[in-house]
């Protein structure tokens, strides 16, 4: 089965910005709401992986990443294990992003389950 693919630079913006919509364009909240969550649902329905390519942007802020991925658990009330199983990350330019995102997901999971 073909996986669902998502490249932030082409499917959303080359210049992702802040955490919330009111703080500026291309926020993490906007990305999660209009791109990430629908793609996640698509992958879940198809029973495949969601491959997220993090390369090609001008740079990703900590708040953007935390709101995008931590927000899946916090706002969209997704299950941590399900998210970690379905989403796979690709980054040749900056592999540190992957570890960082997984850290945000775990922090959000811990917080939600306290």
């Amino acid at each position: 089965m073909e996986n669902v693919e998502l490249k932030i630079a082409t499917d959303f913006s080359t210049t992702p910005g802040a955490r919330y919509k009111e703080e500026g364009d291309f926020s993490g909240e906007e990305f999660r709401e209009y791109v990430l969550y629908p793609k996640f649902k698509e992958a879940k329905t198809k029973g495949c992986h969601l491959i997220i390519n993090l390369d090609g942007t001008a740079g990703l802020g900590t708040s953007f990443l935390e709101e995008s991925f931590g927000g899946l658990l916090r706002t969209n009330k997704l299950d941590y294990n399900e998210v970690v199983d379905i989403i796979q990350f690709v980054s040749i330019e900056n592999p540190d992003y992957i570890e960082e995102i997984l850290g945000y997901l775990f922090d959000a999971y811990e917080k939600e389950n306290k």
Partner: protein
Amino acid sequence: MDANRKIIKQNQDFKSFRRKVRFRQMKKLRNRELQGVSREKKKESQLQNIFNKQFVGYKIIKAPKIFSLLENTEELLSFIHKVDDCFTNKKKVFIRMKDTTEISYDAIVVLLSKLIQFKANKIDFNGDFPKDKNVENILKGSGFIEYLYKNFDNQDTYTIDKKIYTHANKNVNSALTSTIIEEASKNLWNEKRRCPGMQRVFIELMQNTNNHASNHSKGEKLWWSSIIHNKKEEKVCFSFIDYGVGIIDSLKNKETGKFARVFNSIKSIFNPNNNADVLKLLLEGKIHEIIKEQAYNRGKGLPGIYKAWKSNDISNLIVITNNVYANVANSKYEEMKNDLYGTFIYWELNSNNKSIKD
């Protein structure tokens, strides 16, 4: 009728005579004062008289000889305080720059931000040029002068000759900073390159401005940035300033709010001696470890900037906030006598820093 006219004429003659006598006395006095004074000094004195007449009611503030936040931090902060006092009291200000012998873009940004703050609030702001031709050229070359005669709205975005930027409409403008980085990369590598680490620095700073710069409401404060290409040393120098509560005070405000436990934990775990220690802990991410227990999605901005420096995304990171001066590269963290009500960050980009070629 004739008698009346005669009296009026006599009065007028008397007053005219009195004016002439007074004028002669004043002239005599002035000449006596200027006896033995060189022609240059006489000219200077005349100019001073003209100045006094032209700028009545202005508060004259002398700019530091070394007009640089990095090189002469304490004096420049003291200068900012004087200008701020005038703004608070709605007093017209005249910046005396004639004795300034050194000037840097970070300080020009400060001056420009103050100019716009005054003009946007319809308070007169004026000044003279440095006598030093080099310094005068730098000031004029910055495009600062063009802005002296413009009318401003605080909420505009300004770009000055691609060297100074400010933004207020939406605080986090990642497209603008991406363009700034592209321009800088062309200077360093003669081609467009991406510097994701540095873009992150900009985003964190803009985000911090939005979240912490003002105690009053989100998005109220402006941020300013200057970019200058130092061809001789083959580097691009960046400075970013916001006038808010500053990093340390922002954290201390949490002492009484919902983060009260955080601040107490910091005190009990790390036992910092002073604010300089607190800033070091913040940058190194140690405080974030505690903050995330209560607000896991906050407090990552500064460690992100520090990490960008450690990962060689940027060089020569300097942070000035409240009463702390931190030269991160030299591990120099110290308290100052004067406070900066806000945050100033300086960093450099050179060809050895990380970049991505498309």
